[in-house]
């Protein structure tokens, strides 16, 4: 094509610098850990709102983009990219992600956040009721911050060859929940979190007309600066004595992976692609002592550290073709292997720092190989009808687990049709059958597992599912979508364990352009999940059942309104969800029922924007969020409620927060 005369004289190419600065205040009333989680709005009072963007487009493709958000909050983020289009791009990012796990916990332990938890005077005591909790409990907010630094480069960003490097340095600092026990007594503990994960990705890629290929290296190096937590025992235990216990925290580990990928189009519609990744996962953190109890005699450990090593192989080969204009076929073969080369170690048995010298236990370094074969085809026509179907076979071979091999075959069919111009429907049906080759409890686990139990991931199973989608449009302004999903799992030979699981989800969406200035969207969704499991108190035939029924309903609405030629914009978003979970355990004997666990989550966002001129605008917002949960596992459970459990006294999330924000935006 001769484009010499294509001057593009009327093309409004972007050039120069532009950007915006946001500055304002938010006033918060009320607080809740749930609202603060991830957002950084963790207290009542004023918060500084600060952010902005910077954008530059120069000659020869020079570009720079900068975006900063929430700089006054613990959820601040900064992202920048600059380079020359088609030649190189450099990336920089910094972000924080605050986690607020709970704000209703209390603990008598001192030193939380550190590697040693001690107790004040008055401990230990035989039961929680006898502990001096009234004088020693302190509130503790449990949570941590992620601070993430990203650096990246790609060059060139277009053309057949390109190189990419991305580095992420992530630090997690704070606390999280934990627990530690001594025989039949236990305490909830505040665990320290001081961890760094460095992630490096390097890739060289070739992209030609018929062949694309990538060679890459991926490394993830995890380090924890606190390898263990020691805590004083708050319980006195008569003749048994253990003054302190120690938990091993997450060990340092490394993952290194070599990755190759290629795609090839030899001609026509035939296309091959494949991925291959060899990985090695290692862990060699020195072991902590088997016990801190000086009164126990413990044989020497067989090794000072694990020398843990897992080799992974992930391979995937795919082919697709279009032998006829209306027919496409595709097939793939996948292998995911976790080859656990960690030596099995026989360790002296020490039980919760109280008992030793009663035998040994040998570790079970699990591994698996998962192979999947898939074959599918889809056909267009006649008319608007589209039919697709496929077969899948999955085989998983596990080591040191109950079922050595499981095989699952799946058949699926999908049909879609456009009934008229304004009605589209799609129905997908699938059925799968899984069989375990043999199932026997794993040797070396003491006491042995009930031989009638079938772990659900290794059990024979029939799975059926159906999904229906329908999209209707009424003119150009009104669209309605309806979706129904149903799935049933039947564990056909599980006398003990999960025996049945089913789920159903129904949703409806409506989008309505009321006028050019007003748009409305509504959605409603109902979700039900139910499962049944059987247990055996006699470690033999099933003698009890447990049924869990979860129901969730969600309603959402959104509206936007624009007036005065865009000077005024108004909007609102509402989301209301209700969840109810019922647990029914039947043993044949009369027992009180469990109360339902419920969650109510309401959120409303109102926003308004007034544009004074092209440079200056005022943005107002109001957020309301209410969380109200009831959970029999936590409701009213105080630190001393259970005699042998020194609990946090954590309560289900509840709280109402109002947040009023006003931001002045200056554009340049």
């Amino acid at each position: 094509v001769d484009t010499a005369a294509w001057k593009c004289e009327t093309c409004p190419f972007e050039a120069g610098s532009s950007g915006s600065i946001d500055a304002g205040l938010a006033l918060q009333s009320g607080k809740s850990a749930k609202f603060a989680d991830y957002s950084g709005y963790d207290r009542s009072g004023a918060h500084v709102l600060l952010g902005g963007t910077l954008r530059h487009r120069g000659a020869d493709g020079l570009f720079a983009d900068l975006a900063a958000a929430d700089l006054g909050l613990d959820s601040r983020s900064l992202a920048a990219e600059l380079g020359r289009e088609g030649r190189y791009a450099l990336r920089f990012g910094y972000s924080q992600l605050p986690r607020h796990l709970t704000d209703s916990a209390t603990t008598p332990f001192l030193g939380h956040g550190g590697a040693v938890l001690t107790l004040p005077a008055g401990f230990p005591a035989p039961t929680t009721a006898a502990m001096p909790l009234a004088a020693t409990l302190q509130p503790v907010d449990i949570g941590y911050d992620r601070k993430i630094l990203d650096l990246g480069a790609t060059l060139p960003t277009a053309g057949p060859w390109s190189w990419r490097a991305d580095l992420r340095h992530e630090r997690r600092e704070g606390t999280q929940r934990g627990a530690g026990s001594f025989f039949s007594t236990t305490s909830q503990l505040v665990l320290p979190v001081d961890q760094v994960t460095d992630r490096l990705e390097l890739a060289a890629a070739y992209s030609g007309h018929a062949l694309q290929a990538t060679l890459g290296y991926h490394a993830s190096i995890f380090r924890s600066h606190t390898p263990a937590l020691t805590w004083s025992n708050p319980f006195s235990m008569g003749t048994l004595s253990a003054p302190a216990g120690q938990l091993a925290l997450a060990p340092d580990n490394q993952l290194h992976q070599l990755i190759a990928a290629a795609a090839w189009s030899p001609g026509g519609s035939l296309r091959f692609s494949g991925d291959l990744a060899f990985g090695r996962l290692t862990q060699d953190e020195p072991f902590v002592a088997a016990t801190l109890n000086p009164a126990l005699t413990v044989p020497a450990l067989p090794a000072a550290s694990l020398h843990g090593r897992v080799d992974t192989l992930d391979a995937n080969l795919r082919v697709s073709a279009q032998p006829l204009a209306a027919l496409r076929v595709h097939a793939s073969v996948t292998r995911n292997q976790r080859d656990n080369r960690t030596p099995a170690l026989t360790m002296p048995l020490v039980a919760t720092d109280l008992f030793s010298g009663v035998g040994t236990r040998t570790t079970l370094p699990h591994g698996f190989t998962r192979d999947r074969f898939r074959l599918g085809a889809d056909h267009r026509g006649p008319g608007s009808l589209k039919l697709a179907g496929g077969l899948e076979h999955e085989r998983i071979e596990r080591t040191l687990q109950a079922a050595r091999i499981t095989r699952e075959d799946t058949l699926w069919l999908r049909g879609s049709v456009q009934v008229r111009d304004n009605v589209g429907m799609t129905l997908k049906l699938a059925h799968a059958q899984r069989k375990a080759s043999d199932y026997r409890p794993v040797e070396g686990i003491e006491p042995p597992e009930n031989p009638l139990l079938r772990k659900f991931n290794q059990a024979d199973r029939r799975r059926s599912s159906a999904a229906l989608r329908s999209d209707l449009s009424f003119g150009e302004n009104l669209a309605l979508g309806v979706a129904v999903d149903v799935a049933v799992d039947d564990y056909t030979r599980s006398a003990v364990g999960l025996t049945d699981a089913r789920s159903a989800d129904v949703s409806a969406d409506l989008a309505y352009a009321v006028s050019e200035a007003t748009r409305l969207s509504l959605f409603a969704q109902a979700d039900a999940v139910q499962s049944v499991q059987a247990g055996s108190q006699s470690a033999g035939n099933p003698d009890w059942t447990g049924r869990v029924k979860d129901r969730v309903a969600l309603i959402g609405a959104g509206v936007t309104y624009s007036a005065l030629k865009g000077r005024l914009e108004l909007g609102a978003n509402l989301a209301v969800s209700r969840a109810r979970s019922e647990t029914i355990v039947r043993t044949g004997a009369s027992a009180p029922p469990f109360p339902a666990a419920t969650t109510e989550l309401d959120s409303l966002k109102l926003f308004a924007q007034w544009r004074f001129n092209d440079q200056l605008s005022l943005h107002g917002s109001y957020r309301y969020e209410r969380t109200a949960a009831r959970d029999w596992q936590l409701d009213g459970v105080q630190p001393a409620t259970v005699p042998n459990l020194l609990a946090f006294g954590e309560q289900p999330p509840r709280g109402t927060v109002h947040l009023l924000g006003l931001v002045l935006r200056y554009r340049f």
Partner: protein
Amino acid sequence: ADWTRHDTEYSPKGADTCLKCHDADSDTDTFTAAAIFKGKHAQRGNAHAPFGPGGLQCEACHGPGGRHSAGGSKKKLTTNSFKPDSFLPVAERNAACLACHQGEQRSAWHAGAHARSDVACTDCHKLHTGNDAVRTKASQPEVCFTCHKQQRADFHKTSAHPVKAGRMACSDCHDTHNAGSATAMLKRPTVTQTCQSCHADKRGPFLWEHAPAAEDCTQCHNAHGSVRNALLTKSPPLLCQQCHSVAGHPAVARTGAALPAASGGTAAGGSVFLLAGSCTNCHSQVHGSNHPAGTKLLR
């Protein structure tokens, strides 16, 4: 698309021809092409971009516009509009994008669930805009939820990854353009590798492993959301009792009788096996333990 069979030629003046109608003063947002100049496609300095030196400008993607720009022509039947009502099948519409975007990230588009479900690139991406919503972390999920309704409900549950908060995007876990993973188009080859890219503390290998944690995190967690703490699919003890029924306390049915009297139970104070963390009150190292005495995941 193979335009040779559509009997058309390129326009005489390229984009200047197109902008006679599709200019900034066009009567609707969807008719104007002005916003393409805010994106990377319309960069003069990039030799590989449609508007770079020698580039085919609008017609690089929309196909030769000779017939389309001619007076009296059937407008919808003479160009690749990329719209759902296009006369071109999805694969042909997508071919215009894949002609350039077929590198590292999209080489296996042909084998992915999106391609097999006839998803068009423009079902998710908007090119004639200054800000493609699906490429922005905070607005991306709404685009995905257009089809993935179940996930929308999950993210509205009380325990969920921070997608609703705009701090995480679907594409942080899913590679929507590729099929490198055989499961749910994940960015890493397996579910566990994907989860552990952010949760490397759970990676081990541990001295005492918990097999499901090493094999597949979704055996206990729903990655998209749950009404239970920590994205759990079910609360302990029933969660754990699905797979553990050894003689002794793991096999015992925990009924409402084990609740404290204030909650309707009959136990004095309630049972340590049921309340607060339930099984994890003692077996707290559920992802694996590296303690010499961690055989029961107690240390």
